[in-house]
């Protein structure tokens, strides 16, 4: 540590005295910029974001050289990029909330911005923006892969995909991202939220497949089952309804309790 500095430079002169009247707290736009930055400014965050973005080109390149030329279509390439994204994106949403508790940064965050609901909205918007970016990277990388497949390996090169394909995958990815965010708000502790998020839906999916009486109706309450028509681009009116019911059970209900928990709980250092 260096010698103690002189007092005379108490660094204040350049700042304009702020007013005591005006809207309470910090405006949303500023919170959003801060939350976007907080996604990538820690070692863990930087790695997670890098992996989420980088995994797509890696998968496309591997597919380019291992897949049969006739299956090198845009649709197949896009589908292959979705699994790792769906696995990793929720972790980003979850950690955006839980680090404030597990790393105790909430003491500072919610002191500077006491309107906790606005902070949550800024976090949701920040991970939403990043989620859309990651999805866009997947769509664009798959397109480049399709062009390269045709050029290098005389691949099929079909572009058949359709508007509904984009819509369905955006719904899945943002839906699972929201699920991670909801689990984060509900449990607040990184380790607990991560374990619950990754284990509970899997156990549920296993259970509904193992219990015959549940199997036929599983899409009504198992989000993983309800999502599979979205992947296969075969959504029907019933499938949308089933997805909506499962989404309510797995995202909206825990999310609502999570929001209440964040708004009401005491922010402590230990």
């Amino acid at each position, binding site marked *: *540590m*260096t*010698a*103690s*500095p002189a*007092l005379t*430079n*108490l*660094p*204040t002169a350049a*700042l304009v005295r*702020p*007013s*005591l*009247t*005006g*809207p*309470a*707290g*910090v405006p949303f736009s*500023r*919170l959003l*910029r*801060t939350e976007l*930055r*907080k996604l990538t*400014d*820690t*070692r*863990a*965050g930087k790695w997670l974001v890098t992996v989420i973005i980088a995994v797509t080109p890696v998968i496309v390149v591997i597919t380019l050289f291992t897949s049969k030329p006739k299956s090198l279509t845009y649709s197949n390439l896009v589908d292959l990029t979705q699994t790792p994204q769906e696995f990793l994106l929720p972790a980003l949403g979850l950690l955006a909330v839980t*680090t404030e508790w597990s*790393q*105790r*940064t909430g*003491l*500072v965050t*919610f*002191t*500077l*911005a*006491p*309107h906790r609901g606005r902070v949550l909205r800024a976090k949701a918007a920040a991970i939403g923006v990043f989620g859309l970016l990651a999805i866009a990277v997947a769509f664009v990388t798959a397109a480049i892969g399709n062009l390269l497949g045709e050029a290098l390996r005389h691949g099929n090169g079909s572009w058949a995909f359709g508007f509904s394909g984009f819509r369905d995958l955006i719904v899945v990815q943002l839906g699972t991202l929201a699920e991670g965010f909801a689990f984060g708000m509900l449990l607040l502790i990184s380790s607990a939220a991560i374990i619950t998020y990754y284990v509970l839906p899997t156990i549920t999916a296993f259970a509904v497949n193992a219990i015959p009486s549940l199997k036929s109706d599983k899409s009504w309450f198992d989000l993983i089952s309800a999502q599979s028509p979205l992947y296969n681009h075969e959504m029907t009116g019933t499938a949308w309804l089933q997805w909506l019911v499962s989404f309510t059970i797995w995202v909206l209900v825990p999310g609502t309790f999570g929001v209440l928990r964040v708004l*009401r709980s*005491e*922010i*402590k*250092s230990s």
Partner: protein
Amino acid sequence: MTSSAATSPPMIEVAGLTKSYGSYTAVSDLDFTVQAGSVTGFLGPNGAGKSTTLRMLVGLTPPTSGRCRVLDTDYRLLPNPGRHVGVLLDASAQHSGRTGREVLVIGAMTMGLDIHRADELIEFVGLTQSEARRRVGNYSLGMRQRLGVAHALLGDPSVLILDEPANGLDPAGIHWMRSVLRAFADRGGCVLLSSHLLREIEVIADHLVVIGRGRIVAQGAKADLLATTDTFAHSQDDRVFAEALGNAGFAARPGTDGLLIAASTQDIAQVAAAAGVVLLELRPAGSDQLEDLFLQLTADDARDEVAR
């Protein structure tokens, strides 16, 4: 400055503040104010309710009853609170994977300040640029405290609320802290800082609020609280001597390695001579006064500690 400060409304006002967790009352009916130009020490043993009170002041913990106001406003209604109130509740409550500079940059962004402000504060608290680029997880407690003070001063606030800010600082660091807080208060700001260490607060604060078990046990100007006519006495057997003093009509209280008696040295010497007690030390209670006051005020809790 001080005369005008006395007539203007307090910068921090706590009235009837109470926090209960079920049947346990952490903070009970607290009343105190902090005026502009004052450095107020919030003193009490561990678990006395200091941190809970400070968290209620900044809206992190909802009070069970009572109220607290900062700058005559509910803290949560302050526009851009970081520009008015500098807060350091726990210097270690930072993301270990974030660099020291990044912590300040995020703070500056949230307050809508230029990012260069972070570098000004890094320099001010005596962190080097290379230290500021290291991750907070690698910081010593003293460096975290300096970073926390930098964060609290970032928005050029008029109120500082600091929980155990001198914890982990070396003597030079404590001296620096005193100079910073004194200069801050002299400019018309006010400081409320907590500590469980008497020495720190005796050096830094000019007003004291002492709590034990969630209740205020003493408050006022440090000079007034320490003004006492007590005498300190230490004898070969203080237990016997305390009894002799009691019989002579002088109540003796336990002090640090001795007794405190509200009587003149001459009276006490006479009791000792009459009782045949060998005195080892006899003097007006001096520099240890705050410690004696603290021990006396928190004696109930201290006895509990021993009993456990």
